[in-house]
């Protein structure tokens, strides 16, 4: 019984670390929309996710959509917010590529 209880705690901890409920689903759905080049639609779900809790992944993905839609000011804003939350390599790479890109 003790083992099962520990297992449940560990499992809920892992799933909790992966994403906050709601955010993950929005992010997954938005990913399919981004792949289909439906950036406005993806942005709708990503902004919804962003309103739930600050998440560096969501902010990065919002920045991507703004970049694709040509709004560089908003893209920069979200990249910087994401980097404030966590400085990981893919995020830094995205931001570096964004800055390097000459419109």
């Amino acid at each position: 019984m003790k083992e099962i209880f520990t297992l449940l705690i560990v499992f809920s901890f892992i799933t909790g670390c992966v994403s906050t409920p709601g955010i993950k689903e929005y992010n997954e759905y938005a990913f399919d929309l981004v792949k289909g080049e439906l950036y406005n639609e993806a942005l709708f779900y990503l902004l919804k996710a962003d309103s739930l809790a600050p998440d560096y992944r969501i902010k990065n993905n919002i920045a991507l959509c703004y970049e694709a839609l040509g709004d560089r000011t908003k893209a920069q804003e979200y990249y910087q917010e994401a980097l404030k939350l966590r400085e990981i390599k893919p995020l830094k790479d995205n931001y570096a590529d964004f800055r390097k890109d000459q419109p």
Partner: protein
Amino acid sequence: MRISGKISLSILLLFSLSACLLTRDENVRLRARREPLADLTRKTLLVLPSVVHSPDFQLNRDLTQYLNTLLNENEYGTAVITPAGVTEAAARETATLFLDGKTPDVELLHNALADFILSVQMDLLYEYYSTYSGDDGLNPAYSVERGGAPGLYETPTEWKNRSFDDLSFQLKARFVLYDIHSKKRVIDKTETYELILEDYRMKNVSSEGERAFLTMIQQASSDFLSWCRERDVELERIYLK
């Protein structure tokens, strides 16, 4: 109890692995719309002599004239003119000033008819082996003869060694477009192009090099003209999951 513990541990491991796989980041290609950087429609473009840096390679062509011919064939009905009433040295000096970020007295160019002034810098370079020799990846510039792919029975080492028989021609082209009416630089962009000549020892490097550089200048001119219309560009980014 011990067996159930092991099963629980396996399930936990499985969940952790699947969680890791589900949170994998993905590379995405974004199609971004780009607005025109300048409106060249039925305008007059004054092209200054190109500033060419070619430390190791001599071309028997007037690159400014070649570029002007290419730019003249545009879809915007833009008239391409060259400076009149000034010496080539003075025009080249003006071009250099533009490229250095300064704004010279454009009235000196007698440009009453012009709407835009274009200064171009071209750096022509070559290396004795291609960038392919740096790693095992395919180089997109390998499109001349073998398309970047190894031969059927070629080992990676042989493939790599083959790159030392190649020459890599590179063009770094910078375009600075100045709008005379708004007194602003509307374009300041640098692009790099590369073409690889395979088995150069068996070929005439001079004529092949000239051909490569002219092809790349053609591409650069076409890219410059494309910046003046609405267009789609492809961006590679990482989607975080």
